[in-house]
């Protein structure tokens, strides 16, 4: 049992540790905000910049690869079926997911020239940091977009995007779950459908 001095030392240590939390959180918040701002600026610069559509897609793919934790999102979107998939299926699925995600992001590149990105406030949620932004695209009402950033202090990566409160990964997970439930819960069928979709949306 700790004596009084040890107890006081422990208490002081806890108080000091607790006192450090706001600083750590603030640091995570600043890093996450700077990370999202820089990623958003890069995306906007490519979309609004010169270059052919093919070049823009190549540049956007690089940005997505560097800033988004695609593997974690992919695994989340497959839900309980991730465990049921064979290692080969998991590999094919992640590859296709990556392709589909990049295609979806870049699909409308040509039409969004003139896009504006304004960074807002951020807030902590569990271990993640959520950074708010306002995205303005020509011909579209301004959209509130929240970026969920994991490991905000050390290795920030985007793990979800919330457009007007709707989560990209939750929506994607519902889509896949529904497809699987109507196709005998067969992961191979999902992979085939994703492959077909990726081919269709290539251009």
């Amino acid at each position, binding site marked *: 049992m700790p004596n009084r001095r040890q107890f006081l030392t422990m208490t002081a240590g806890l108080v000091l540790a607790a006192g450090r939390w706001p600083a750590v959180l603030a640091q995570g918040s600043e890093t996450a905000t700077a990370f999202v701002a820089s990623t958003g600026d890069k995306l906007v610069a490519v979309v609004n910049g010169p270059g052919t559509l093919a070049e823009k897609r190549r540049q956007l793919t690089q940005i997505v690869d560097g800033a988004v934790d695609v593997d974690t999102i992919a695994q989340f979107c497959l839900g*309980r079926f991730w465990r049921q998939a064979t290692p080969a299926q998991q590999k094919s699925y992640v590859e296709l997911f990556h392709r*589909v995600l990049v295609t*979806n992001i870049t*699909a*409308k590149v040509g*039409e969004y020239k003139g896009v504006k990105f*304004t*960074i*807002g*406030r*951020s*807030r902590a949620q569990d271990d993640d940091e*959520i950074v*708010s*932004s*306002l995205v303005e*695209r020509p*011909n*579209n*009402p*301004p*959209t*509130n977009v*929240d970026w969920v950033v994991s490991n905000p202090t050390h290795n920030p990566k985007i793990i979800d995007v919330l457009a*007007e*409160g*709707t*989560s990209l990964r*939750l*929506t994607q997970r*519902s*889509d*896949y*779950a*529904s*497809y699987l*439930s*109507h196709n005998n*819960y067969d992961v191979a069928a*999902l992979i085939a*459908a*994703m492959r077909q*979709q990726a081919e269709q*949306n290539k251009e």
Partner: protein
Amino acid sequence: MRFVPRLPTMLSRTLRCCGTVGLLAGLLAGCATPPPADNPDAVAEFKQTNDPLEPTNRVFYAVNNGLDTVILRPAALVYRAVVPTPVRTGVHHVLNNLGTPVQLANDLLEAKPHRAGNTTMRFLINSTVGLLGVLDVAKGWGYPDHDADFGMTLAGWGVPEGPFLFLPVLGPTDPRDTAGFAVDIALDPFTWVGGDNEWRRVFDWTRYGLSALDGRERVLDSLDQVKKTALDPYATFRSLYRQHRQGQIDEMRNADQPSAPGQGSQPAGADQNK
């Protein structure tokens, strides 16, 4: 906020007709078959999805989607091409302003005095300085818009959403929001004033037609994107609808609480799309 049109006689007739078709479709399509009990994960998922009428809902989704493809989407594309953006924005503001009384009633029923004050100020400012609602002057003066309808009010009172529904004309909904839609029509002063004459019918149909065009035009790109990228667009719309409504309800619950979490998360310019 969601625009709630007065239900003109013809629309009511259409709904009755669709209801009959729906009944037939329901009899033909029936209810969703639960997965076998020896697959507990699938059973849990089935319960969580809470869409026992899925086969019927999918029939209505197909019908609505067909009507949208041949009528509403092309009309919205023409509307976007022909009407300049500032005029479309003005139309959106006028429609929003006409919906203010219903919004105010719901703010009060939700016991949100700060929001009710905002709504009142918005109506007074935008109806006068804002030239009958064409300009949203109030937002710049510190009175931002927000969502309020009776479906949200019921949620605030603790009424559960119930199973997912996809209804003709109305689209994705649930029993709570369907009841809310009907009550909002009753709460709308335009339902009760003006009598039944030619001008009244012109006003109703102009308001209804413009709100359909405005609403559809604003989601042209988003809906195209969902249809293009989803493997199961119906399930995707179901998820999006529920998440969006939950987001509106959470925002309403956190409103009028200065230190409420999430309130400070709105970026500058939030609510601009309302």
